[in-house]
């Protein structure tokens, strides 16, 4: 499975340029899409999920024209939108069985097996007969994951899947996702850098409708290896001074004290110590570079 996106552009009627000439090639594994709110991630995801058309560009899934052959794509698609609701007065079990039929799993026995397995995996087994409308946010999100994974999809698009999950469920979901990612294209959009770091062999960073970085996390980290420096600073005055003289990537609070991370070829000065580069640094750096351009 390979997904090739070339030259996608999209401008909304209100003038917002959601995608600017986006090109990506995604193989048979997990692909992480990082970006701040409004970067165009969801527009890209919806386009890949056949829910909207770009103004220009093309998407190819193993020789299948995604934009023209929508119905063919939907047959192999598992999609979890960023936001979704549920029908009232329907249980998770009934709804999943129903969706399984719609996804073409017509053999009753298979349908039951797969639904039961997913209910167990998403930890919804005990509440499977409860009305979806009574689910809490996290439960609903798990239901969304279950339906997206129904029936061995070849292309899985999950938009902010870990939002609203507690740490245990998040881990469980990430494990689940990685276990099925063999020979399947999974595109995961998120603004949680750790999700990508933990899961994705390949990734891209988007901002303002454009792809800033496309690489593997390791490559990206390698590019800034040995160039990250950190320092605990005394206050805003110092931060201000640093900002004007150095490329400050981020600040963190550690035990109530502010630590600043700076990107520099060599040590930026006294008090700085070399720091292990992190994916988050790549992310912030890309955004900052993009903003400066």
């Amino acid at each position, binding site marked *: 499975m390979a997904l090739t996106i070339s030259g996608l552009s999209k401008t909304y009627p209100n003038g917002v340029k959601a995608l600017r000439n986006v090109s990506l090639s995604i193989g048979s594994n997990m692909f992480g899409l990082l970006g701040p709110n409004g970067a165009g991630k969801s527009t890209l995801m919806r386009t890949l999920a056949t829910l909207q058309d770009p103004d220009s560009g093309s998407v190819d899934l193993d020789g299948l024209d995604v934009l023209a052959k929508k119905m063919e794509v939907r047959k192999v698609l598992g*999609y979890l939108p960023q936001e979704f609701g549920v*029908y009232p007065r329907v249980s998770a079990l009934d709804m999943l069985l129903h969706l399984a039929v719609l996804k073409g799993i017509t053999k009753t026995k298979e*349908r039951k097996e797969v639904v039961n397995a997913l209910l167990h995996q998403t*930890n919804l087994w005990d509440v499977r007969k409860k009305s979806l409308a009574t689910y*809490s946010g996290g439960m609903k999100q798990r239901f969304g994951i279950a339906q997206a994974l129904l029936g*061995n999809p070849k292309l899985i698009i999950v938009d902010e899947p870990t939002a609203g999950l507690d740490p245990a469920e998040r881990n469980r979901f990430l494990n*689940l996702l990685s276990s099925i990612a063999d020979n399947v294209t999974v595109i995961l959009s998120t603004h949680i850098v750790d999700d990508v770091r933990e899961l994705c062999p390949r990734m891209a960073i988007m901002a303002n409708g454009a792809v800033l970085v496309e690489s593997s996390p390791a490559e990206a980290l390698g590019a800034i290896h040995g160039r990250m420096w950190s320092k605990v600073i005394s206050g805003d005055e110092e931060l201000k001074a640093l900002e004007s003289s150095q490329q400050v990537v981020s600040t963190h609070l550690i035990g109530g004290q502010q630590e600043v991370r700076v990107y520099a070829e060599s040590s930026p000065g006294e008090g700085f110590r070399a720091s292990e580069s992190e994916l988050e640094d790549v992310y912030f750096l890309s955004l900052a570079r993009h903003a400066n351009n």
Partner: protein
Amino acid sequence: MRQFLEFFLFELKFRFKSISTYVYFALWLIFSFLCVASENFGGVATGNGKVLVNGPWANISNDISASFFGIIIIGAIFGTSILRDFQRDTTQIIFTKPISKFAYLGGRWLGSFVATVVVFFGLIPGEMLGTLAPWADHTRIAHAPLIWYFWPFFSIIVVQIFFLGSLFFLVAALSRRVFVVYLQGAAVFALYLFYAGAFLSTRSLNRFWPGIFDPVGILLSDGLSRYWTVVDKNTLLFSWSPHVARGLFLYNRLVWCGFGVLTLAALWILFPMSLEALTARASSRRAKLAAEQDEDITPVRSLVVARTPLVHHLFGPATTWAQYWSLTRMRMRNIVRDIPFWVLLILMAGLACSNGRFAGKLEGENVWPVTYLMLQAVEGIAILFFYIIAAFYAAELVWRERDTRFEGIHDALPIGEATDWLSKFTALCFVELVVLAVAGLCGVFMQAIQGYYHFELLQYFKELYVVTFPQILVYALLAMFVQTVVSNKFLGHGIVIGVFVLQPILYNFGWENTLYLFGQIPPYTYSDMNGYGHFVLPLFWSITYWLSIAAFLGVLSIGLARRGAEDSLVVRLRGLRHNLRSIAPALAVCLLVAIGSGVWFYYNAHVLNEYLTAKDRRDIQANYERDFKKYEHVPEPKIISVDASIDIYPERRSFSGKGHFVLQNKTPHPISAIHVTNGRQSVSHVVFDRPFHVVSSSPRALYSIYALDKPLAPGETMNMNFDVGYTSRGFKDGNERAELAYNGTFFDSDYFPSLGYSAGEEITDPRRRREEHLGPQELLPPRGDALGSVTNLFTTDSDWIHYTTTVSTSADQIALAPGYLQKDWIANGRHYFTYDMGQVQTLDFYAYVSGNYQVTRDTYQGVTGPIAIEVYHLPEHSFDVSDMIAASKAGLAFYEKAYSPYQFRQYRIIEFPRYRTFAQSFPNTVPFSEAIGFIERMEKPTDIDFTYFVTAHELAHQWWGHQLIGGRVAGSNMMAETLAEYSALMTMQHRYGAANMHKFLRYELDRYLRGRGAEVRREEPLAQVQQEDYVWYQKGGQVMYTLADYIGEDKVDLALHNFLMQYRYANASDAQSGPYPDTRELVAALRAQTPADLQYYIDDNFENIVLYDNKAVSATVTPTADRKYKVTLVVEAHKVKSDGSGNESPMHLHDLVDIGVLTGPRDAEKPLYLKKEWISDGQQTFTITVDQMPTRAGIDPFNKLIDRNEDDNEIDVVKK
């Protein structure tokens, strides 16, 4: 206070920012504008043509209509105002602030109240603007004082907004549920419909208590203004006085204002002002679920990820089918598990059952709930639900994914748009099928409850599923289409409702064509005799036409379906072009069927038949009057003999034949021009037995003038021959001729030519005459008019005729016409009958009837020989046959003894389909509609035996109308109808006793008083009556009945006998026209038998319009020492004289009136004491001793006199 103002102003600001507020305002503005400006809109303008359209009563009526339809708007404004915080989850923000209950609730409430009042205020400028419309009927627009606009607004609308708004506010505040708020307006609306319908449909005479508890005002207004004359309606507002109509208006408003205050008090007490209490339900539900999960979660789950089992995806027709079915099931489940569905269903079933309880019952008459009546009752109310459900669920289904925000998942599923759409459509069909079945079951159930076990399930099926269901589907498909196109669900609802409401409005405005009135079908009537009969074809083709158009829209909605994130119409229209390839075949099929059925319908309704709107038909009438009225008094010969051979083809709804008239010149001058009116366009090839030529013939050959080369000399006779017939071709767009039916053909002599101008063709409604610029209709000439006196009232072109006929029909039917059967035979597969009247001369009034009849025969020994009594009826309609025969025998016995011998040897009653609802007396032959006899049921002794009455009435016409005929002058009509009515009343009294007449008389009085209230010209005194049927039937019958009570039945009968023997068969023998009697002779005959001190009764009731206001003031009882009861009764009486418009002037009262003391419950009293006393103006006290404890007492307790407030004549007797 600051907070209060804040909430109040916020609410107002919110309302006035919302587009709906302006829409509502505009709606009322347009509504009341049309009520005034259009003659074709609203109950007042389309009703009585003399009532001012901006008068006080008109404004009250319009405001009551607005109150009725406005229930939903009041619900929408008040309900949502309190719900908003809960819907938008702003509760957490609001209720964590320090706000007072008064500020929050009060501000919201007052804001809603003011907004609603402002919205409804649109009515007033609407009414005012309506008076300025140049096309309005300015003869009905007065220079109205402002109070006529503002009084109804404040006393009716504002009061209603107060209490209903408070109720809706309370319910919304306590339930805090969207669907409750969504439905409560509709629920109150439906409940009110049920409440008002239950009282109105039975025409109950008890109007006080229903009026008191009427929140909207339909029954209230009926109770207050039921008998208002035109003058009253144009001058009076409802009175606040506790003495007018027992204070009905005052107490009603007090009751409902009190109700409003109570609701507000309940709101104050019950509304919890804390977030915890307000959201308790939702949070407890979630907490419960979490608790359950906590318990179950304890076992530690393995962190090993189990692999998801491998499955197979199959896509093909079988999967498409499985998807369709799964989606359909899911959608049906969504609807059926939803509470509003059950609310609607139960509400509908309740209304249907309660309506079914009264199926066919009217004015105290009890009938068997046959299936068509039950369907009418059940479907009549349920149909509203069918449409509401179609529109409501079409929207819910179309918007479901978007409303629940499930569209992200749904739209990316591998399902085709058509599959998805069809599943929605199927679910909607399923819901409708269920609802229709429930309506049908309610009907069957109510039939069983009432002991009627002849369940015609096939008829239920046909009516509900074959006729109604497709019509509902048309709207369902429209609603799905509209909801697909529009961007907002409520806008969609508005458009669908607008389309629905627009159709009858367009129809009223003269746009009557089924082919462009969306979803319209031509009107149809089911008849037990005929089934759906000739309506099947127009129904089939119109339904096919609209269904295919709707299906076209349906397929288009598939192409326009919302899918994905970009669902603006522009984007979807672009998509439509892309989808067109796949939906084009279906679109083409729909289009072809629509065009095909439309063309076929058009060919039948417009090419094979002439298409005429109501206005076109009025134009024809008006042109006839304009062009030929001038010939009205041209001397014409009289028809003295009729001989016709008629062939009826029931299966083709046609007949043809040849007629032969013998004409005689009864004038002293030669006649050279013969004028022939052909009002039914059924006459052709008119020839005379002497040379003649056609002088002129109007379009449609309605009026032709023939010149005789040699004039017809005085006294001379001449033969006239003509073809007569009518051929039904295809079908029409409504207005099918009811005379022709597969089973139950019934047409009469008006299909034959008449000589000279026929005033019967004229338009009578003054409003329509004004529209045609015709001027007032010419009245019957005064008594003594030279020409009128020698002209037969019923047939101006004939006095008496000899009649013989041969009629044929299909082999399986019986054909009838007046006369004695000479022979019948079968030839060429057809059944022939020859009837001859012999030497008995009759009115020139005959009919031809043909049907599949069962005949029940009996014989009565008359004074001159045996009289055959025959009833021709449907085999299933044998309920009343013996009652009809009994009434015929009783009538014959009474009339022969009291008046004169019966002139015929037979009396036949013949059933005909209920397309027309009357019985009509031809010589010895009475066609009788299946709607007014044949299915009556007598359960209780108080049930009115209407069949018995009608049978006796029509029989009496054999004397009053067929022996005695009046001249064509004012008053003469009453000599037929009033005397027939009196004869029937007495026949009924002989059968059921005087005490059982009270109920019937009260209905008669009610009809008279309502009739005069609805008078469009002017009411005439009985002896001068023109066209006022409520005078010659109801008033006349009561006046004569009471006269018999006052001077003795024998005296009245003697007077009638003397009168009849002197004037019967006037003009029957002379070769020259002589005078017919008129009411002067009748009144003189009655006066001759009336004592001097009661002559005032004749003056009042025959020569004037006089109304009593008799009233029981108090009645007390004290037991006496000798175990008797002494009743002290105080009564008050007044009498007024009214002019033709209803202007009243007081009269001096010194009249004989019943004073009675009664036992038994209200409406079933028996007299303990009943004596006529001389009563004068003002209060009078009577002391009466009776043997038994009385219950009621009063003045004229049995309503023998004409009394505008007939229900205050009696009063409960109280112990002292």
